[in-house]
């Protein structure tokens, strides 16, 4: 009978009655001020560590655009002689601790421009050269109705300067071995990119396709010295295809890890011999960068400084809040 009468009575649960146990963070002084203090100190600690680490990274940058302020490679800048070889020399007074990484850097180069960035065909790069390249690749889609492999602006504009490094020891040039293996992401090399498969050689696999317009060699001949470093799996190609987020960027070219240079570049004079092919001088600059890395990656002072600044601000804020709190606390409690 009772239940009959109360047929419409709502359920008594914490949810329906909005009585769910809850935790409500309160911005109380006991919580906020020490919080700021702790965060401030922690951040300063992290910041200092980052900063020192960053300071310990050695970086050597050489602009070789050949125009303007830096004149290295100016003889090649007009792009008249092809190929044009130029030298950039530098000397080290201390050991450049290894492993040393050699990067090329481009600035004001908009790899992140949308039309540029979409101008590729991931399916093709995954080994399917028989299909017609995606429309996004236009105008580097076809030549004479034959598909371009790899198609698109990114591939077409692949960076094609080459570098070789020599140490000058007693007037003779000693080649520093540059290691070009494993400079791309593992996932790019093993999964994202794939060479077309065919009976026979790689060249057969690319049969029926055209090389990109700007390329001097077809994809399967990118690295004549290493048969496995060709086609879509060429390491330099992979690195290039991972487009940069910002208009100033640097990309890994080689590592110096072997031979006499496994521990780094010893003090001395060096010559970087550059085959100057890549034309950016009309809109940007190019440079070459030697750097080593730490646990926090490459040289970037910003993060350390930012942590220190934010940490300091936190400390300042905690003092300000303490003052305010002390001043208003009592007036408040009376209210």
């Amino acid at each position, binding site marked *: 009978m009772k239940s009959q009468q109360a047929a*419409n*009575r709502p359920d008594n649960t914490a949810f329906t009655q909005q009585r769910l146990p809850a935790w409500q963070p309160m911005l109380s002084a006991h919580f906020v001020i020490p919080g700021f203090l702790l965060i401030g100190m922690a951040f300063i600690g992290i910041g200092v560590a980052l900063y020192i680490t960053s300071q310990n990274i050695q970086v050597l940058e050489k602009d070789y655009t050949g125009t303007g302020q830096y004149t290295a490679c100016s003889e090649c800048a007009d792009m008249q002689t092809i190929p044009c070889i130029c030298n950039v020399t530098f000397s080290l007074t201390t050991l450049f601790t290894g492993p040393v990484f050699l990067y090329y850097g481009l600035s004001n180069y908009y790899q992140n421009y949308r039309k540029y960035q979409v101008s590729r065909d991931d399916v093709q790069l995954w080994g399917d050269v028989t299909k017609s390249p995606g429309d996004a690749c236009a105008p580097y889609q076809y030549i004479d109705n034959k598909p371009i492999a790899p198609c698109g602006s990114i591939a077409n504009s692949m960076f094609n300067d080459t570098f070789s490094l020599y140490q000058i020891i007693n007037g003779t040039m000693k080649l520093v071995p540059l290691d070009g293996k494993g400079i791309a992401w593992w996932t790019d090399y093993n999964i994202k990119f794939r060479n077309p498969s065919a009976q026979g050689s790689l060249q057969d696999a690319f049969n029926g396709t055209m090389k990109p317009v700007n390329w001097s060699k077809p994809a399967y001949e990118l690295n004549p010295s290493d048969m496995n470093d060709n086609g879509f799996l060429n390491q330099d190609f992979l690195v290039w295809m991972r487009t940069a987020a910002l208009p100033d960027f640097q990309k890994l070219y080689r590592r110096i890890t072997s031979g006499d240079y496994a521990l780094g570049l010893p003090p001395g004079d060096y010559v970087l011999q550059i085959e100057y092919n890549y034309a950016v001088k009309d809109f940007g600059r190019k440079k070459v960068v030697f750097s080593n890395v730490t646990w926090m990656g490459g040289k970037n002072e910003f993060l350390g400084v930012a942590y220190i600044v934010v940490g300091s601000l936190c400390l300042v804020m905690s003092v300000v809040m303490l003052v305010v709190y002390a001043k208003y606390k009592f007036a408040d409690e009376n209210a």
Partner: protein
Amino acid sequence: CYLLEETRRLKANDREFNQQYNYATNAIKTSKYNVFTFLPLNLFEQFQRIANAYFLFLLILQVIPQISSLSWFTTVVPLVLVLAITAAKDASDDIDEKWMNVQVGDIIKLENNKFVTVQIPVFLKNLGCQTIERDLLFLYGCSLQVICNYLLLYIFPGVVDCEAPNNRLDRFTGTLTYNGQKYSLDNEKILLRGCTLRNTEWCFGLVIFAGQDTKLMMNCGKATFKRTSVDRMMNILVLCIFVLLAIMCIILAVGNGIWEQQEENFTTFLPRQDGVNAAFSGFLTFWSYIIILNTVVPISLYVSVEIIRLGNSFYIDWDRKMYYARSDTPAEARTTTLNEELGQIKYIFSDKTGTLTQNIMTFNKCSINGKSYGTETEKVDFSYNPLADPKFSFCDHSLVEAVKLGKPEVHNFFRLLSLCHTAMAEEKSEGNLLYQAQSPDEGALVTATRNFGFVFRSRTPEMITVMEMGIQRNYDLLAILDFNNVRKRMSVIVRSPEGKLSLYCKGADTIVYERLHESCKRLMDVTTEHLNEFAGDGLRTLVMAYRDLEEGYIEDWKQRYDEASTALDDREEKLDELYEEIEKDMLLLGATGIEDKLQDGVSQTIEQLSKADIKIWVLTGDKQETAENIGYACNMLREEMNDIFIVAGNSAEEVKEELRAACLKMKPDSNNDDVTIAKGILGKKLKVVEDEPVNGEYGLVINGHSLAYALEKPMELELLRTACMCKTVICCRVTPLQKAQVVQLVKKYKRAVTLAIGDGANDVSMIRAAHIGVGISGQEGMQAVLSSDFSFAQFRFLQRLLLVHGRWSYLRMCKFLRYFFYKNFTFTFVHFWYAFFCGFSAQTVYDEWFITLYNLVYTALPVLGMSLFDQDVNDRWSFQYPQLYVPGQRNMYFSKGTFAACVVHSIYSSLVVFFIPYAAMYNTVRNDGKDVADYQSFALLAQTCLLILGLEMNYWTAVTHFFVWGSLAIYFAITFTMYSNGMFLIFTSAFPFIGVARNTLNQANVWLTILLTTILCVLPVVAYRFLLMQLQPTINDKVVRQTKASPPPPPRRTRIRRTSTRRSGYAFSHAQGYGDLMTSKRFLRRPPAGRTAAFSPPSRSTGFLPTSRSAGYSPTGRQPNHAQAETSLEMYRAVREA
């Protein structure tokens, strides 16, 4: 849609016959769609909404290759989801709500006091009186059980021809063919859906219209579509956002044009398409950015708002503290789109009877022959009287003793009460009496009299049977001198079994006193004192008097009376004259005090609401005294108020004078032109009458007839201004139209949210006119509830509805909106900043899948968690501090200001979210020397930062914990999945971000960047809030702080004793009495312990119609029935159209 139906023909009990016409069944549905039309129709409707159309437009932009900056799925997925959710909601709204399997042509039985739940008009049994009387009488005579009645009715071979379904409540035409004879059917012979059966235990009916076709449903389409102020605000903001969007896109388009110009040499590597120059590229970029930045107008906004409102509506339905056990009625949110407005109410317009009061009267005190009874505290034992009503209690033994001793004046007093009324008695079994009284007052008096031993048992048109102290006596009823608003009294003329002729009269004190015999002078003084006492206790009073009459005189009088009652001209006047003539030189018997019980907690609720700065205006059809009395009783008017102005002028000038005087008294320096100035300056702009502060507290009581003048154009501002200066406003004797007009007036000139609460049909117009209408689901029928937005059983639940549910809903909605705009602006602005670093090429910062899923998946649950679970303080604290309600009234949580702050905040956050990763990743590499500053890694970093920002919460229930951490987990799970080898191998082109998560999120500097970004976004806000709390704590901060310091307050259960010395009104409802019904010749003659019978002469059908109420609002008191439902609807329409 129906085929046009011109007439309807149906056979009783012949479903097969009736089915061929395909009449609507008794399922109420909005029935817009069927299975096949649903999809196209629904989609068509949905795309008519501007937001959806906008997204369709975006979708079209996206398939243009030159413009497309995002894959199609980024828009399609949310759009489809939104459309699907809306479609599902529409479909569920559209699904049949089965009531009862009743079809046209069925004969059904209705029971007393039940709403006509089968939702059909029924043609009625007063047919029984006219046409099939014999059958029905035969049934009564045989005392057959109900089941037999069914059997006989089952073969009832009537055929009805009637009009097609229409929405006219006051009209019905048709004929019944039965046994070869035709009987006409008119409006008085049908029962409409939604009405309540009264005064008879049951009746039979034949279903004529069902479901959709019922007149009530035909009327329902007229309900206005209400929008909340947040809605309106949102619309304005969306427009602003569109402008912002356009500005941003123009800036970026121009930027693109310039970039294309300057960086022309980059075309070496990225040749332009044919025919695209810098300017055209800029133009295309404009559209591309429209697509990318469309997230500032998030598609999910409207859907989310709806879902949140729906959720908060369910909380109202589920609230046990708004459930009324006695009538088993839970609160109901009938409109699910107005919740947050409940947190912004500034004005409440309340009906009185049944809303503030229970509409249940109890006989509390009486004064007989100069002695006052009912002042003790111990309850009287009525066991000596076998016919006593066990529910009745009275607290004075001396009265019982007096009755037992047989004091003649006491007997006479109760005899009067047992005879002078228009109640009807039902005796289901011996001694089990049930009175059906026209007004609760009468019911109370007759019940009291019954307990004291003067039991009214039955009546016929000519006779009243009363058990007087156990002896049955039959009084001849010679005349009923009925009640009306002018007479304010009623009398009966009876002949006792001994043959003594008497006139018994009861009425308002002032009226009856004028007609007393001089010899009563001394008694009058004593009784007056008692009356004052009763009134001081807030009781409604009546004075009783009698007069013995001569046989000869009465014969003469009766003859003239009969002539007058059949007169064609001036019938009323002639009768009045006759009444005046006989109702004089009466002898005073005594007085009664009846308590019009306030509902529980009314005064406390009103006190709470006024603490929350809500102004309560009572709009009642009652008389001024009654209304004032209630005003005192529920603490709206107080003795200590500086002044209470009464406006009762009978001409426009008088009313204006009174208003002006009141205004000057409250604010002596107020100048007369204020109101006109406000009008003049603002000109065409929305006119707003500002609140003017006054010293002291004032009350305003305004009469219906004065209100009519005051609501006229030139004076309405004067009225509003004066009324708004007063703390309390009571409008009495108002018509439903005026109720609506008052609401409209406030709505029009005050930038404030209004709420109207009522329980009767006369409140419908007001309920519909106000921003929010609340219906009390009480005894008055369903009409108020049906047109309301929220309904519950008791007035006191209003405080919970507003102070708890309303406040929370508002808080949640505002928090949601602020958060939602913040979240999406931050999201979008990052794109804006990035444009400067990607050649304005409409490149996105984030992965396209992230863009697709950001609102729909990653942040949906935290948003939902916040907007369904967030509380600043719990309900007890909300009651403890009604002031917490004030920010809502002032729109403080979501206004243009807060929106601007929100934009600024998101600009800051977006700068942080973009530039910190930018600077941290600039020319850096992984710890193995490989690339980490590539586009995809940067995208992942930025979006992760953004997402973590989006998970900020203030109130953590277990569910929100789950939602927040769950969302974060889902984010990482989905991200790793989408960037996994498997997904790439299966959908190569759709998931190009393969491996990014693995290669990026294992880097220390990436995590340090995320940490830095988050801290940099969150800490300034924390510091700002903390300082604000210290320097300028809001009421919320204070209360929240206190909740931490002390345990929650106990639920308050204080009853405020009222201490009023006011004179009371008289205890009558203000409608015409039942007099002519009682003496009607059609009145069914029955033996004293009669069978239950349905009777309702054609002249009257009080109590059988949906709009009837005991205290009618009609100033004339005539025909307070269904005709008026139509009028109120019509009046309402007139108001709306005006």
